């Protein structure tokens, strides 16, 4: 409970948004409030109308009640419709703003975030969190605020009439609006957390089970595994049963509170307007009016305890979003923008570079020194985790070296942000293909590229024919994550982007993983040809097609251990020869 209040006080994401969109929010709340007022007024007026009709001689005397019944009868649905539209419009606007803010918080640091392990899920969660904030408003905050307004309005009105009535109203409904929600949060909150954890664990376990089902079957142990899975599912089901039982009891308790209010109203109305002495007067007509008026309001109040429960999940989202800021503060500050930008010739110099991802992390690079003159084609090899991708990240300025310097054309690119892409283009293994058209995807390399440029690039990566065969050509949408293209085609699209960008240094970070050797060799040759006048750094774990390169470097232990032209290395290094033969078993010379 305490951390809830603390969260609401320190929240810098959601509450400020609510505040900046105050007017539409207030409008929606007013509409919601009026909607229930009209509903109650409809019953009130109908109760009076019917009671009065029983004594009146002509209908004309009931002129006013008749009109009011019509007004309230038509007004309520209209208010309902308007309120829903207003609410959703407001929520959608707020969500847009939230997304942009989330983007701004994450994007500049994107590459650094990726370096930490849990990013994929974190980013996915964050995208969902925006939807949770929507829910927070629509299913929790809105109904609770409207109920609170009704509660206060009712208290004020009834306070006029009778303190006893006010007491009954305040206590009974106070129980529904305050006691029951707090009880729900206290009892259900921890259980919901258990269920959530059980669900997350189940998800991980079931994924494993399904992916590895074959192995378990072949090991003859599938029964054991299946029983474990069933048992885990059972345990989770039991947890949820307990929550449901509580919810049911709580709902019955709420109904009991409503009963108290209704009976109090009847008792008071009977005392105030009833009795033998008032028979035949207009007063008695108010008995039914007051007695029935509360019924429609029950709809507003019943949703509050469940809304409080639902709000808990949404609050987790708010917590995560706020944690982003804390996380950002905890990470080392990004390097300051460089004093000047690279100038030709775009020679690359690594001077005694050391780097680790953080204070507790192992040294990835130690005293790395090498120079790559402009126009050279370099193949960079090494085992996974030896620092190849780190080297690329430093080159591009995503991180600043802990010691030593990395310069391109005489200037470091650390902290250059968007500008770095003008000088160093990187195609990585996990280059994302966006859900846009082929042309738009390629143009991401250089937004002002013409169609000609795009076709040229596609031709060079051997995609032009395929794209021409498509009915919509360049305008064909590639689907989510590029799902309409094969893996190889996606890679080539990413390379086409870089061709269009035209930066002086091009880095290809294992761009051909998963392609068969023929295609890999051909595309490498094409790329080497298209980038003849640029510096190319190819990070790879194979020596296929390496003869197209001027220089081969091996990284090991954070340093360069083998470095030279392919022919020279073949002649001088036994280790190189051995590995070369693995990749090129049928060549007599390199």
């Amino acid at each position, binding site marked *: 409970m305490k951390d809830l209040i603390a969260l609401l006080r320190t929240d810098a994401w959601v509450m400020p948004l609510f505040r900046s969109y105050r007017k539409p929010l207030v409008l929606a709340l007013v509409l919601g409030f009026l909607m229930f007022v009209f*509903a109650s007024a*409809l*019953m009130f007026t109908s*109760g009076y*109308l*019917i009671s009065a009709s029983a004594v009146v001689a*002509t209908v004309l005397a009931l002129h006013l009640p008749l009109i009011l*019944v019509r007004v*309230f*009868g*038509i007004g309520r*649905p209209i208010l309902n419709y308007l309120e829903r539209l207003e609410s*959703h419009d407001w929520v*959608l*606007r707020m969500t*847009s703003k939230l997304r942009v803010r989330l983007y701004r918080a994450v*994007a*500049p640091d994107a590459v650094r975030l990726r370096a930490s392990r849990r990013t994929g899920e974190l*980013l996915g969660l964050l995208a969902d969190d925006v939807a949770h904030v929507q829910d927070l408003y629509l299913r929790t905050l809105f109904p609770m605020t409207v109920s609170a307004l009704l509660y206060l309005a009712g208290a004020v009105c009834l306070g006029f009439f009778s303190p006893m009535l006010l007491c009954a109203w305040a206590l009974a409904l106070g129980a529904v609006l305050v006691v029951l929600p707090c009880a729900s949060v206290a009892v259900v909150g921890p259980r919901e957390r258990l269920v959530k954890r059980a669900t997350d664990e189940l998800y*991980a376990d*079931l*994924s*494993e089970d*399904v*992916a590895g089902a*074959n192995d378990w079957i*072949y090991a003859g142990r599938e*029964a054991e595994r299946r029983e474990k*899975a*069933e048992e885990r*599912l059972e345990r989770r*089901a039991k947890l949820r049963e307990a929550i449901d039982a509580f919810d*049911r009891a709580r*709902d019955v308790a709420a*109904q*009991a509170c409503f009963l108290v209010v209704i*009976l109090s109203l*009847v*008792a008071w109305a009977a005392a105030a307007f*009833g009795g033998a002495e008032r*028979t035949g007067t207009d007063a008695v007509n108010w008995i039914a009016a007051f*007695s029935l008026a509360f019924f429609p309001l029950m709809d507003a109040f019943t949703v509050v305890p469940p809304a409080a429960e639902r709000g808990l999940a949404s609050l987790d989202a708010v917590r995560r979003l706020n944690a982003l800021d804390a996380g950002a503060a905890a990470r080392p500050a990004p390097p300051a923008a460089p004093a000047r930008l690279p100038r030709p010739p775009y020679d690359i110099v690594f001077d005694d570079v050391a780097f680790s991802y953080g204070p507790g992390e192992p040294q990835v690079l130690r005293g790395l020194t090498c120079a790559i003159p402009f126009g050279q084609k370099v193949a960079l090899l*090494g085992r*996974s985790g030896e620092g190849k991708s780190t080297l690329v990240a430093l080159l591009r300025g995503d991180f600043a070296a802990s010691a030593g310097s990395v310069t391109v054309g005489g200037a470091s690119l650390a902290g250059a*942000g*968007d*500008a*770095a*892409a003008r000088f160093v283009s*990187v195609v990585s293994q996990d280059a*994302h293909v966006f*859900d846009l058209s082929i042309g738009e995807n390629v143009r*991401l390399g250089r937004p002002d590229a013409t169609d000609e440029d795009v076709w040229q690039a596609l031709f060079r990566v051997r995609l032009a024919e395929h794209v021409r065969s498509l009915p919509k050509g360049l305008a064909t949408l590639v689907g989510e994550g590029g799902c309409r293209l094969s893996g190889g085609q996606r890679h080539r699209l990413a390379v086409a982007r870089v061709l269009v960008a035209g930066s002086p240094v091009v880095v290809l970070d294992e761009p051909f993983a*998963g392609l068969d050797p*023929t295609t890999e060799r051909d595309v490498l040759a094409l790329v080497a040809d298209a980038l003849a006048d640029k510096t190319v750094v190819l990070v790879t774990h*194979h020596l296929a097609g390496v003869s197209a390169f001027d220089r081969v470097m091996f990284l090991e232990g954070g340093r360069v251990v083998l470095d030279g032209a392919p022919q020279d290395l073949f002649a001088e290094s036994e280790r190189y020869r051995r590995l070369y033969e*693995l*990749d090129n*078993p*049928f060549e007599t010379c390199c």
Partner: protein
Amino acid sequence: MDASRKRAEGAGAMFDRQLLELPGIRRAFCAAAAFAAAQGALVVAMAWCLARALTNLWDGAAFEAQTGLLAGFAAGFLGAAVVRAAQDAWFARWASRVASAVRREALAAVFSDGAALVDGFGSAAITTLLLEDGDVLEKYLRTIVPRMGNAVVVAAFVIAALFAFDWVSGLIVLVMMPVIGLYMALLGSMARKAATSQRAEYERLSNAFSDTMRGIDTVARLGLVRSWERSLEATSEKFRAATMKVLRTATLSGSVLDLISTLSLAAVAIMLGFRLVDGSVTLFCALASLVLVPECFKPVRAFASDFHASLEGRNALAAQRRLMDEHRKAARRRLEGAQRFGAAASAGPAARPVDSTPGLTLSFEGAGVDHDGRAALAGCTFSVRQPERVGIVGASGAGKSTLASLAAGFRAPDAGSAALAGACAEGADAWRREVLYLPQAPTLFHGTLRDNVALYTPEADDEAVLAAIRAVGLAPLVDALDGGLDGVIGQGGRQLSGGQAQRVALARAFLDRTRRLLVFDEPTAHLDVETEYELKQAMVPLMEGRLVLFATHRLHWLDVLDRVVVLAAGRIEFDGSPSEALRQSPTLRAMAYGEGRRP
């Protein structure tokens, strides 16, 4: 999915024929009707008592005299609440049982068909089905049946009572009911049309944000951080406008129900007023009618309210149906191909043979596999005999993996036959006992290193496990792992590199010498060349004396293989020794020497 989007999409029929096929559904409907009848009776009793009490009070009676009636009202009111709770409890239990049964069925299917089912359906889709879809289905079942029951039976009770109190009010409500149905169907289809006509574009807009999030480092690398923000804002705005357009119609559909129920109440009140003046109805009946009318519409509103849950519920049911269909297809294939998927047990020893016991023969006779209508593999005929080592070579998409999975016994061929002779068991079991399958990404599960290595041989002692680990070069991992052999790997534990994972798989093969058929499916293609070299040194001893099938496009493996089968477009192009293949197979020559290069 956005809440707004859910509402926009949700207009649709809630009832699904698939519902009728669920176990115990008849009993559930009866139970729903019974609970609803109880509720209906209590609601009518409640209305009767309240109306009577209010009429008496209007007549001038004392409040104290009404205590009995008010107690009756209280009993009815609370009683209805308790019956609702009991109904919820009953249906929660029923839905949980049905969802459990569905999950258990799916799990059983997965653990009996294995790869044959998982590869076809998709591993992520199955996990979603087991978890999320199961939950959605439960929620759907738990609400749809009782609400249906309430909407029909409670409404029927209340309308009947209305007729008893005042036939005009009853008539008004009775006439409004089908009008509601009609309007909702009409507006529902309008909303659905609005949603579907723009669906593709709408999907794209709504996924734009998560697309951005997933590719955000690509955005950063392309230097587009600032300009992307502008386009994100523009896309969000377009999405908002599109959603509001659909919502305007979708909200109308819900509002119509609201309008009709509120207008009915108003109409009833006005009619009652007139008729009271006339004297054609008594105050008691009028008041009772007034209380009952909203109770008619409440269950109908509840039934109509949870559109999106019912849409998701129906999808969950459909997904489960699809999975079971796949399962039945796989079982059918196995049954039909029983003679094709045969194995003859050797007449020999009762004990399990060790790996060097020769005699295992794998043969394919015109084997073919269909995938999505086209033939991934066709007319494959060849046989291999222990201790041969055969390579399966070809470009990607040529059918290597398909042939490997046939050889490993994952599935029966769609045409022709595959047989494993000289095995230690019969039928599909033969494969399961004799095969060790080593793919690119071996299965590692959340557990200790020891458990992972001893997957096939849980009885192995630590000595044996350590020996296997050392033999495959995994010893550095044991040292680096917290807890050594007891260190946890897999999901939630320490992540292993590609090379280390492959070594775990090799250690398994090392430990289990009883399996004589080794099927490798591109085990090292994704690894760096130095790790590949080391793994190759570790793999060769494993192949001693066993029957080996090695699918790969890395041609250096040819020097440890006796024979090579070259696949091109799903057919065997060449079958013979590696040196002959290099001379005669055009596909292999192209792969080895490239275009325009000489040997």
